[in-house]
């Protein structure tokens, strides 16, 4: 029986779900093990043995344990800061999953194909996600902690988002998926952040959805991704898992 991959964290958070999307697409059996931050479980000896920084996600694959060092800035140790710090740390893990279980998602062995995948992985990491996370931080996380949403931050980032999506539109006008005519990890890494739009109180907020839907090729690409079984499964997991 193949060893089960364990992911420590909660599916609701978009960085954990980024890892889960890659596992689902690669057809790997996995188990999500919740880590109870409220109860301090992340600092328990058992979890620290997995990740010396007491953070998630952590992926255990047989004997191999992979985490990304997360440096929690302890000026405001509220849960909102934890979640914010965690969000960037899943990409090396998703690459590991693909390399091991479904290397075609990275076009391993193909010099040009893998370069195109890398380009759009970087775009997702440095252009798309920072803007989306700034928006989601305001509209998703702050209300949970009873904090005031800063509309100016939201507006500023929506303007940036429109520019980024303009580039995506141009790309997707000549290419079915981001890296080429094949789906890759570059496309999949967007799914978790975009799914988070589906579970916010701003679900139908035109300001957030419209930049994506205004661009016909971006919309078609997103509809295609959303139709994949993995997106439905992630959506279900995110809606049912704990906070």
């Amino acid at each position, binding site marked *: 029986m193949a060893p089960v991959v364990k992911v420590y964290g909660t599916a609701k958070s978009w960085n954990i779900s980024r890892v889960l999307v890659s596992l689902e697409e690669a057809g790997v059996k996995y188990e999500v093990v919740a880590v109870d931050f409220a109860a301090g479980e992340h600092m328990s000896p058992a979890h620290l043995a997995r990740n010396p920084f007491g953070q998630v996600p952590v992926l255990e694959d047989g004997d191999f344990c992979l985490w990304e060092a997360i440096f929690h800035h302890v000026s405001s140790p509220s849960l909102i800061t934890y979640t914010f710090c965690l969000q960037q740390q899943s990409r090396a893990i998703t690459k590991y999953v693909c390399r091991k279980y479904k290397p075609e998602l990275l076009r391993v062995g193909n010099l*040009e194909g893998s370069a195109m995948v890398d*380009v759009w992985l970087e775009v997702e990491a440095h252009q798309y996600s920072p803007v989306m996370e700034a928006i989601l931080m305001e509209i998703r996380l702050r209300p949970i902690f009873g904090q005031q949403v800063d509309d100016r931050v939201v507006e500023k980032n929506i303007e940036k988002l429109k520019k980024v999506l303009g580039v995506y539109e141009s790309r997707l006008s000549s290419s079915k998926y981001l890296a080429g005519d094949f789906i890759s990890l570059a496309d999949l890494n967007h799914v978790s952040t975009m799914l988070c739009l589906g579970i916010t109180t701003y679900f139908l907020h035109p300001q957030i959805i419209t930049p994506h839907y205004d661009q016909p090729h971006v919309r078609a690409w997103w509809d295609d991704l959303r139709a994949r079984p993995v997106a439905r499964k992630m959506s279900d997991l995110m809606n049912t898992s704990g906070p």
Partner: protein
Amino acid sequence: MAYPRVTSSSARSSSSASATRSRLTKVDVDSTIFRAVSPEVLFFHYPWATRVWCSLLTLRINGDQPPKHPPTQTTEQSLAPIIATSVEHPSHSRTNMSPVKVFGHPMSTNVARVLLCLEEVGAEYELVPVDFLAGEHSSPQHVQRNPFGKIPAFQDGELVLFESRAIAKYILRKYKTADLDLLRESSGIEESSMVDVWTEVEAQQYYPAMSPVVFECIIFPVMRGAATNQTVVDESLDRLRGVLGVYEARLEKSRYLAGDSVSFADLNHFPFTFYFMATPYASLFDEFPKVKAWWEGLMARPAVQRVCKNMPTEF
């Protein structure tokens, strides 16, 4: 305005033991004040700053004529952008591959990242300036290469790439040999994953902690005449201290970040750390002896030394 492109297609001098940079064509810089560091953020987030910077600088490029001054092995802060091809790596023959092109300025941290990888693998390349003053970064030609209008952009034959880490990885894969695999992709998944992890750590933790110090101490004062915001500096140094503590622990166990020999993960740290060392806070590294030794080891690398020559140390 068409920007003349210089290639160092001049006859290659026969290599000699001392001619580590014999193939440089030096571009004259006519400027009394050339005090700018230009990490990529300047170019896209502060376009006005870039125009100020460019207006301080007049480049005279001698097309096919010999340079006015002989190329010098300069370690002072001559800020002449250098159109160069790297010296062939002594143990690899790359003459069968045609030169690749990098679009951008060698002082830019992201361009430096790409140049470092090219130098490490001994690839031939051509560095093509992008004239920000003339708005070339927004021109249709450049936007076709880099749709975000940034630098670097890269071309190898028909293939055009952007995003410096993606470009760097392409270079490291293309020029990989049995002895030189800086991504460790032939070494097995656990090793290549470590390279991925520490590459992400640099991008997502190290850089965000370190960069505000460089901006506050160098870039903003130089570009805007702004006073340093000490609160931002202090908070960033605090955060950076935490980051370096983790690095220290890592380097206790492992000679380099991703294992016992250098990899892409280590090289990624070079460009911004180089500028950090020009701030008043370089001594922070003294608190972390393993980190400091690791950094000094990186700086001693011949490829790093070659890239450093085009990056200012005083402002």
